């Protein structure tokens, strides 16, 4: 089960909007993919992906993953200092790397389920970022 702490929705900064969008997308990915490959393997793949990208996007270390799900709670203040574009690029890279791992393991079986959900969200994030 994915788990997210409720956060204050009043301050709709672009960074918040991008963050909310990706948080929901990651939860959706977690729910869909864990049903296919199980929580333990998915946790491992998230950990590998974050480890791979943490040098380029250090803020990704605040994405907490466990067999219970994903949590980005309490990180809003930390992330507000980042530009929406950087948040978008960081999360986009994370999801792209996860897709790569999914395809290494199961060719198109997982990505076939995922792509229709992911691409519209990428486009929406790009729209928010370009409005700034």
């Amino acid at each position, binding site marked *: 089960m994915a788990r997210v702490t409720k956060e204050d929705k009043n301050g709709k900064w672009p960074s918040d909007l991008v963050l909310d969008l990706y948080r929901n997308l990651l939860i959706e990915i977690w729910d869909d993919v864990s049903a296919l490959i199980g929580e*333990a393997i998915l946790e491992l793949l998230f*950990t590998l992906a974050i480890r791979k990208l943490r040098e380029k996007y250090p803020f990704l270390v605040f994405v907490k993953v466990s067999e219970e799900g994903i949590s980005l709670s309490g990180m809003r203040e930390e992330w507000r200092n980042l530009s929406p574009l950087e948040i978008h690029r960081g999360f986009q890279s994370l999801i792209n790397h996860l897709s790569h791992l999914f395809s*290494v*393991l199961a*060719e198109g079986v*997982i990505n076939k389920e995922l792509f229709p959900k992911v691409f519209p969200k990428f486009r929406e994030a790009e729209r928010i970022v370009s409005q700034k």
Partner: protein
Amino acid sequence: MRLIFKNLNILRSIINAISKSSEIKEIVESAGAHLPNLFDFSSFGVLWKEGLLLYIYQDESCPPSFSQDMAKNMARVFSVLGEEPVEADQLTLEVGKRNFRPKQMVIDPNATLKSHLTLPLAAEGEVIGCTSLTSDQPNAFDAQDLQFFSVIGYQMATTLKQFERFSSIKTMAIYDTLTSLHNRGSFEERLGIEAQKSFYGGTPLSLVMIDVDHFKNINDTFGHLEGDRVLCEIASLLKGSVRKKDTVARYGGEEFVLILPGAGLGESAMIAERIRHLIESTPIRIGQGEINLTVSLGISNFPIHRPNSKEELVKMADQALYEAKEGGRNRVFIFRPGHA
């Protein structure tokens, strides 16, 4: 609905078979025997990090090149997931062939791997291997196959982790943690087995007790860590000086013991003398320099010394060692009845 129940029952049987397995080969065999009821596949494999073993269970009609394709693919996936890259030629392959495909579905001799599902075997956040289902047909697997296979993979990971734990407990129970030689307990057990064989079968059995001369001076002068290193070097020299069927054990402190099954007095004296000479002539690194150490050795033998028990055989070798020490050290002494 009926199909789902049928599949769940098969899945339950597979999980049950895996959890009851006592070695990796058994996991592959027992899971492999049930898998054709659940999936359409050509080959199934389990790669275990320990020893880089790859067990493959495949249809009789799979060409050898298919196993190679599979090894390459699993090495590639494992390299992406694991901490160190692995090449296919580093893997030790064991291939079991079975007839599980109907005759009309035999695999073309030129078939190549066209699709796969490969999952990491992850336990406690560690990747201990991976498992794979492969096919000579493109897009052979779907989301439901992946769901079922992930449940099987999870059970495999849990069982393999238990094997790892059991194997390390077994290692600790048998081997001396410093020198990796057999420990005292394991020595007693092995001597019991060998003595029984010899006493009842009438075959010779020799025991050689070895003590490092003036070892206390090394600990006092260079410290216990250097002393430990010296013991490891001597252990390695001993291991390299005996036959495959012999047992080398650390008896305690700086004392070692050899069990030489089938060795008469002449042969065991030759082995002991070879060890004495080897240690005397091998410089051992210590501190900033090197030293040459010596050892004293005592030999006892069945049937020559007529021991009535294994304990008596040990006592006789110990007595001979005492005499080697008393005689000036750096020498081999054979037990002599009446010398105390």
